């Protein structure tokens, strides 16, 4: 598979927070979820990729282009959706589009009009009068109308109702159908990633704590549920995290074989959701 985004040893320090040795690759034809709690460093990483923030060290290459030296060429091929659509809000959707379109070498008006219709966005309406969902749809519409090869989206589903979120997930799935495009999507709404993501990168406190193919990650982990009596201190080595209540214990293990041998039929085993993975990995850290 072709790599469309490669981040190597990215470091960025602030007074009270830092990104530490961020290292990952995104492949063509995939949706990669960038997961982490609020303040984990997702937006900071995305801003570094987009050269909105300057990294202290490391390298970033997207679509074979250096993100600083070939910034303009690269951004021509990126579909960028930020957490809050940044536009001149006094303008109408149509006016903003007319100002934005000429910047792109491959602006596709036909595609724009077709998605505009599909999203049912009113072109004559001012951007400031759009709802959060409509605003996000407009951002996605602009990102999808210039033949972008890599979509970088920062929390595109935050604040959207489940129906709009579902629509968005379908749009993203359709986007990668031709195997030529890729989506890099940051979110803390993990249910979206359960449905859409091929790969997952978990970030916590500025560090990647887990990454890989979603199915492989899920397959290599297990949620173990049982009574209090079953668990003792020595077993913590087999778990990423354990959640104890007065009557029962639940834990996420990355050593399926070992825990099945220990608990055998005395415990209940479940495939973890992305949310389980996020909770246990970020709780431990």
């Amino acid at each position, binding site marked *: 598979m072709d790599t469309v985004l490669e981040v190597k040893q990215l470091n960025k320090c602030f007074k009270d927070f830092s990104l530490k040795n961020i290292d990952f690759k995104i492949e063509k034809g995939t949706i990669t979820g960038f997961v982490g709690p609020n303040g984990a460093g997702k937006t900071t990483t995305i*801003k570094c990729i987009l050269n909105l923030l300057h990294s202290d060290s490391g390298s970033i290459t997207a679509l074979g282009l250096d993100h600083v030296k070939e910034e303009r060429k690269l951004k021509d091929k990126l579909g960028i959706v930020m957490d809050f659509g*940044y536009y001149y809000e006094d303008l109408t959707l149509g006016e903003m589009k007319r100002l934005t379109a000429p910047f792109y070498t491959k602006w596709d008006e036909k595609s724009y009009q077709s998605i505009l219709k599909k999203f049912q966005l009113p072109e004559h309406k001012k951007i400031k009068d759009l709802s959060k969902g409509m605003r996000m749809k407009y951002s996605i519409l602009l990102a999808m109308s210039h033949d972008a090869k890599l979509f970088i989206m920062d929390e595109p589903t935050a604040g959207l109702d489940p129906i709009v979120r579902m629509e968005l997930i379908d749009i993203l799935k359709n986007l990668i159908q031709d195997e030529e495009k890729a989506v890099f999507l940051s979110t803390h709404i993990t249910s979206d990633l359960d449905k859409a993501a091929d790969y997952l990168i978990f970030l916590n406190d500025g560090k990647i704590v887990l990454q890989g193919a979603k199915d492989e990650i899920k397959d290599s982990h297990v949620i173990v549920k049982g009574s209090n009596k079953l668990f003792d201190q020595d077993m913590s080595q087999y778990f990423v995290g354990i959640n104890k209540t007065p009557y029962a214990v639940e834990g996420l293990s990355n050593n399926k074989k070992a825990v099945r041998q220990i608990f055998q039929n005395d415990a209940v085993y479940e495939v973890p959701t992305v949310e389980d993975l996020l909770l246990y990995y970020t709780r431990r850290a």
Partner: protein
Amino acid sequence: MKSQLFHLVKMELFSSKKSLPMFILFPIFYPAFFRDGKTDILSYIFCIAIVGFLLFNGFAETDEKFKTGIMLNTLPVKRSEIIDARFISLYIVYAVITVVYFLAAAALHVIKPDIFGIMNLSVIPMGLVIVSVINVIQMPLYYIFDIQKSRMMSILIMFGIIILITFMFMQSWITPIINYFSAMSTAFINIILLLIAAIIFTVNRSVSERIYLKKEF
């Protein structure tokens, strides 16, 4: 790509479509009420200074309000082009304002030739110096600090300059210098003024660009 610069200028001006007519209308009424005699040089300079201050602040407020730094820097443009586009937009508006001012002054002259003098083109170099000074104070400060801080600092610096100039003109040593320049031809003085404006502009562009290249959003 030069076209990106053109699109940026178009975007900058179009996004200010609400406030720009006010700036353009200002010099239509201004010469009728604020004038300093038949030549109206000071009147023009004050007009361009007021517009210069308000215009840049208008652009800066739009930046702050809509976080245009993020928006512009996610477009396929270079950061230097964003700065250049701002300069071009500012100077386009100054040019339009000057033309409107001259036309308004000419119209007033036709109506009341005994009160209103016709404007002389030789005031333009001085206007350019004023515009360049106002921009060189405001722009770098704005790109370092936020709008509130930079506006306060700009006002303080401008007042400082006015006080300094007033103080200089009260000194006896300034008289021979004024006499020296008064003896020179208008054309020569205008060339010097144009050179000063060009130097200030070049320094401002270079400094603003360097600051903006390092800016984080």
